[in-house]
């Protein structure tokens, strides 16, 4: 079973797990993800591979703890194991070969943008990253992205970097011209806003979608999204798509399918925690 080599708290509810998964570390490409099942009875969760090192065999997973499953996952400590990791899944990012790319990351999405920026930089593409969070402690992967190019930071409350949304900063970068492509990953409203910003400018925009998934191999169809009016399976046709063609309303709507169940699972979990049955 894949062992956890290191665990780092990146922001109040975002945790980085370095996991030993040599085959995946060896062949993963930007944009690809894994499906993780923490233990027997746990959910299968899709997580983008934020980074990897083929020499140490380590892959980096960045997890926002929102529900029971993600909370249990981030509670794992170095030396403990994750029961199942399968991958790498999904199509690799379509990277441009030259020019200048704008990478936009919102919250935990910044970790998903990172491997894309990495791939671009390796190809000699100039990378400008615009990343943001609610406030200073929510900004992640800044240092990693700085190694790959210019980074502009903003926070909703102005506690770090510029005050405002990533779209505000991105608008200025785009206005200055010379951006060949935009990669944007973050909450659905952010990706929608970026797509709306770049559409009139005709700047190709790629977004990474995170619908509900089960198997991750195209078998269940739970992750279906609508792109350009056609139904696609994010796990095998994506997870990255042309942001100008994505039906974000449908995505955000379908993400709410299990909201009441998630709340129920979480409250059962919290009750069990209080009773001292779980940590």
């Amino acid at each position: 079973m894949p062992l956890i080599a290191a665990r780092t708290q990146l922001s109040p509810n975002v945790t980085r797990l370095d996991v030993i998964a040599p085959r995946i570390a060896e062949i993963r490409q930007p944009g690809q993800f894994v499906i993780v099942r923490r233990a027997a009875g746990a959910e299968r969760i899709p997580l983008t591979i934020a980074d990897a090192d083929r020499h140490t065999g380590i892959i980096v997973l960045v997890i926002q703890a929102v529900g029971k499953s993600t909370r249990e996952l981030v509670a794992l400590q170095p030396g403990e194991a994750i029961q199942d990791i399968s991958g790498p899944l999904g199509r690799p990012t379509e990277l441009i070969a030259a020019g200048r790319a704008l990478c936009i990351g919102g919250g935990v999405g910044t970790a998903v943008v990172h491997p894309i920026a990495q791939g671009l930089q390796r190809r000699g593409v100039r990378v400008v990253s615009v990343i943001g969070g609610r406030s200073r402690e929510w900004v992640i992967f800044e240092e990693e992205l700085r190694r790959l190019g210019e980074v502009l930071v903003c926070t909703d409350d102005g506690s770090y970097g510029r005050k405002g949304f990533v779209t505000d900063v991105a608008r200025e970068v785009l206005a200055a011209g010379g951006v060949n492509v935009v990669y944007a990953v973050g909450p659905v409203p952010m990706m929608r806003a970026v797509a709306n910003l770049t559409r009139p400018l005709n700047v190709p925009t790629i977004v990474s979608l995170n619908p509900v998934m089960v198997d991750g191999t195209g078998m269940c169809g739970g992750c279906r999204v609508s792109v350009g009016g056609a139904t696609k399976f994010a796990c095998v046709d994506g997870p990255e798509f042309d942001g100008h063609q994505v039906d974000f309303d449908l995505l955000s709507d379908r993400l709410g399918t299990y909201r009441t169940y998630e709340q129920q699972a979480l409250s059962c979990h919290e009750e069990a925690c209080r009773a001292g049955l779980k940590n």
Partner: protein
Amino acid sequence: MKERLAIPRQSMPEQDATDRSRNFQEVNFGFPEQIAMLEAQRCLQCKEARCMAGCPVMVDIPRFIRFVAEGNFSAAAQSLLGDNALPAVTGRVCPQETQCEIECVRGVKGAPVAIGHLERFVADWARLQGAPAAEKSSPAGGRKVVVVGAGPAGLTAAGELVKSGHDVTIYEALHQPGGVLVYGIPEFRLPKKIVDQEVGRLQQAGVKIECNVVIGRTYTLPELRERFAAVFIANGAGLPVFMQVPGENLKGVYSANEYLTRVNLMAAYEFPNADTPVLLGKRVAVIGGGNVAMDSARTAKRLGAEESMIIYRRTLQEMPARAEEVHHAEQEGIRFEMLAAPVAVLGNPQRWVTGLKCVRMELGAPDASGRRSPTPIPNSEFTVACDVVVVAVGTRANPLLTATCPELKLTRRGNIAVDADGMTSLPGVFAGGDIVRGAATVILAMGDGKRAARAIQNYLAATPAKARRVVTPPLLVDKNAVRRSV
């Protein structure tokens, strides 16, 4: 002889329909020993046993039944397990009524021998005894063979190949071996424990299974061909087909694959004790008429649906589902809405499913499949209220693996093309089960596995292991000669 003919077909004891429609425990209890022996005595031990010809894996049916009749269950088990890698599975899910039992001479006047029930009896007897693992054959002459997919076809092929001494590894994409046996077929028809035990027996016999390996992603087919002497592809037909009607992306519309995977593989029926949820519909409409549709409708009922219905565009007579499944579904109170085809899924402003708009069908002339083809009756639209829709109208071939190997010849539908032995267009690469057939049955997949295993053995025998790269011995240099040439 007369006495034997006088014995009536013994019926399978089963859970009461009302009770079972509210739980996930197995419907059938299985034959007690005395009943099994009685039923076995009904077999006439035909010399030319037609039942065997009807069996895709060619189980020697009269032989194991004879042992049961004699009360020699261990001999029966040995006989059956020698022919069939997964008898506890096939004894439960095979459509015996259209395969072995339909050929039984006892069926000419009266009821055929209950071959399936007897198979299940013997397999369960063996499981409870902790059947001795098939002895590991010596690995001498064994070659490395890889099987893609731990479903019925892959498990069968692997079982056959280790028996003949090969070193077999199965790569499974999901976290648990079994394929459709664990993600598709519900607990109440085939308990997971039974699949685990059958898989465990194969592992004891030497089959290595590695889960979470997705061929086409983790490794490609060309990589497997490099590392193994032969490849058997049995990765199933894993791409769900939707109806292509408006409203299909509303919340509450599932593919049968997703619905059943959530409930079976991920145990959503135990939520919140298991972490994966499934929407608990009050009124569940299942579209389709196959076994998967029956499984979905019966699952919905067990999850607490007040009404669970099958919507099918033909009639009960044309339904491809097994008779036993339809019968059980009827007993459990599943509603059958026949001659109806959905034209749209209806939803509320919050985009939850509220119903199905259907059109009434009538049956016209027989089509290519020999079944009368349904055509819509004009102005016959009607609405069915429901809050969950499960689409069980079939699957297509998953292109994940085949996309990594463009030289592999496919059929027009994207299935892998094979010859009579199950060999693909690539030498040493074989395929079987649903990736070749499209959606079929467990036993046909197992038959493919068995046939491919034989073909792989022949192939390996005909292509000796790659000779070690011949190392050229260092040239014996005649120093004098060198000197001379200088």
